[in-house]
């Protein structure tokens, strides 16, 4: 398994190089000019051109790419045009919010998605299953911005239990108590994803329940809960594990709407704002990191497969 993981990590290098080139080209092909955004509406084309020159953005594209790539290889993602700060520190500021949001969202998904999915499968065809499946459909269809705004109205404006928006770092005053700022956003983000997990757990368990080894277990006289947990649930987890992996990776990019509604200083909102501002170094840096994240999680999912299912061999 170690050799497999090493080979997969080495394969990241050419993929990342190709991704970096694509990202760089796409970002620079969008019309627009950071100098014009920076200077505002009253700037004349001459003033914009002068600042573009001063920022070195008038150099040929291939030179700009090579210069950027050279810095990236040394661990320097450049300097944000907008913030004037190193891209890594700008991303690190957003990463805390995004990672904690993703983790708390995953907690909601696991707490809600797995048990309800299991109950729905074990009570297949009953009213319990009908209610769980209907609820899952409802939450999968509700737009997150709508759900988020209603949660704010209920829990912040009317009841005053939770803050409406923002997120002070856990290293600021308040410490871990600041995680309460992420309760509503993580639930909002979890709702549609938990609904999908409910449906996936239910479907996988129903598939596994029909297999011969489950019939054998039942024939041996094992208790139904033991059959459900040891023989059905564990095997159903193989498909669910992959979904968890990709859901976690996707949360970073999917969180844009939730981060906007709850005004969270996360990576999703950062990348959207950076696109609007044409802050090239930040866009490139964030996308590159998301690519790495996807690839690492993909690898972890493959490793998890092998752990969950001994029949899967990693070569």
């Amino acid at each position: 398994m170690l050799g497999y993981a090493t080979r997969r990590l080495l394969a990241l290098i050419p993929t990342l190089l190709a991704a970096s080139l694509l990202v760089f080209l796409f970002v620079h092909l969008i019309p627009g000019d950071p100098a014009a955004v920076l200077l505002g509406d009253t700037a004349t084309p001459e003033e914009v051109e002068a600042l573009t020159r001063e920022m070195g953005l008038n150099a040929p594209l291939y030179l700009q790419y090579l210069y950027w790539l050279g810095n990236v290889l040394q661990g320097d993602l450049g300097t944000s045009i907008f913030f004037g700060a190193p891209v890594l520190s700008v991303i690190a500021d957003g990463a805390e919010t995004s990672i904690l949001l993703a983790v708390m969202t995953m907690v909601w998904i696991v707490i809600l998605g797995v048990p309800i999915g299991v109950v729905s499968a074990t009570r297949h065809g009953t009213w319990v299953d009908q209610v769980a499946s209907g609820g899952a459909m409802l939450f999968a269809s509700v737009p997150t911005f709508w759900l988020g705004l209603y949660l704010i109205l209920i829990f912040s404006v009317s009841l005053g239990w939770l803050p409406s928006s923002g997120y002070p770092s856990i290293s600021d005053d308040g410490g871990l108590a600041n995680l309460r700022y992420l309760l509503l956003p993580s639930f909002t983000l979890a709702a549609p994803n938990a609904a999908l997990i409910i449906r996936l757990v239910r479907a996988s368990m129903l598939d596994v329940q029909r297999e011969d080894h489950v019939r054998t277990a039942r024939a041996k006289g094992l208790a139904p809960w033991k059959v459900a947990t040891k023989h059905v649930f564990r095997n159903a987890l193989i498909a669910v594990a992959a979904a968890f992996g990709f859901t976690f990776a996707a949360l970073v990019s999917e969180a844009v709407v939730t981060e906007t509604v709850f005004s969270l200083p996360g990576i999703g909102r950062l990348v959207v704002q950076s696109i609007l501002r044409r802050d090239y170094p930040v866009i490139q840096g964030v996308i590159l990191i998301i690519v790495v994240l996807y690839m690492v999680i993909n690898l972890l999912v493959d490793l998890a497969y092998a752990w969950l299912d001994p029949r899967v061999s990693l070569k």
Partner: protein
Amino acid sequence: MTLNRPLKTILAAAFAASMASTAYAGGTLRYATVGEPPSLDQHVVTSDLATTIAHHMFEGLYTFDAANAPQPLLAESDRLENDGKTIVITLRKDVTFHDGTDMTSADVVASLKRWGEHGSRGSLLFSNVESVEATGDHEVTIRLSKPFGPWKNLMAFINGGPAIYPASVVADAGKAPISPENYIGTGPYKFGEWQANRHVELVRFDDYDSPSGAADGYAGERKANFDALRFIPVPDVGTRVSGLQAGDYDYAESIPGDLFADLDANPQVTTIVNGGPLFGLVFMNSKDGPLKENFALRRAIQTAIDKVPALQVAIGPDKLWRANGSFLPKGNVWYTEAGAENFSRGDADTARSLAKEAGYNGEPIKFMVSTNYPFHYDTAIVYTKQLAQAGFNIDLQVYDWATLIKKRAEPDQWDLFFTHHGFVPDPILISVMNDNYPGWWTTPEKAALKAKFTESADPAERQKLWGEIQALIYEQVPTMKTGDVYTYNIASTKLTGLGEATLIWPHFWNVDK
């Protein structure tokens, strides 16, 4: 029981400290902004959001009172010599920068020179400046090639204006905005921190020496009551409103018109309508395309449009807009109705015949608009419909704002584009007066009137000349004004000292919670 001397001393000090602290309301004012400013460097950036934050930190030689008249701020007095070609400004002697150094004429000269060379609005004044010199520790002399009437208004307008920084900060600064670690000004608040995507925070400057006199607009006494001002980006308007109602913010800006009636009637929220309206502008291309020098065709387009339905659709409540043809609002010294009878004729038949006389044969007219500002897009949709009814073939091109401002610099890419303009205290600051602004209105008639307008120092004569320029705008139509838009903000009812309207940008000195 008696207290020993050290304990008495400690208690006395604690009591004194507690009494001293009651001089301030303290706490942090939390302001929900629509986004983050590009930079707070006032020389080069003209974003209103940047100025809303920065004018608590940076000050200029002059500022505006409630009647939009320029008043001394860092300046103490001034005099004109040599028939108005020499300006001698005496500076206040009690001014300290946030880094603890005293402000002297060397700082003012360095700041003015950088603003003149690289500033967004500096070239307007500096195209006439021969020299700027320190003629004393607290005296600056500006020599002009010819008199320039609006010099004080330009200096008082801090947005894209001559904020005074220490000479050490501006010595090596070019066109690129100065970085946050060099945000050193003289204002009642100093720079605290800028956490990307989180907030910009200013903290009270305890050594601030306020200008004297009663507070009047931005002039007069400035007292920083809060410990800190925190400007938090909250891009979603629903969240800004809910956050204020939930008590998470004290002030929230740029609330849309469709929420106005409810919020205005809500006793738990204060609505503050901006006193200085912004106005939409549709620029016409004077450099290329079918509208180049074809003033008759431009007048045909102007004649086709009825501005009222677009304002109703795009803005909403009557209280938030005026179909006003004057470039400056009623009540302002620059208000004039010259040419404004052509502001909103909405006469499709006349427009059609005018277009025919102008030689228009149905060729496409490229109209660029951005969806970043909903009122731009909504207005453009109504105009496109009205123009189509008058026989114009409008090719509506919808972009994001960054793309639009890139494309408008290329004359062959557009014929019309939509933008808006903030309130300005002197018409010389309106973008159409700048020959290099996209649209490139540079006719000899404009040049002659503009020269007279800038050279005159007589207020009555300048007002008369502005009337002639406005009439010329309606005749040559380099741009079409779309009407006045009164944006509004909301505040917690706990805030006191806000006033009923903001002058241009909200300010939080002399405000309590």
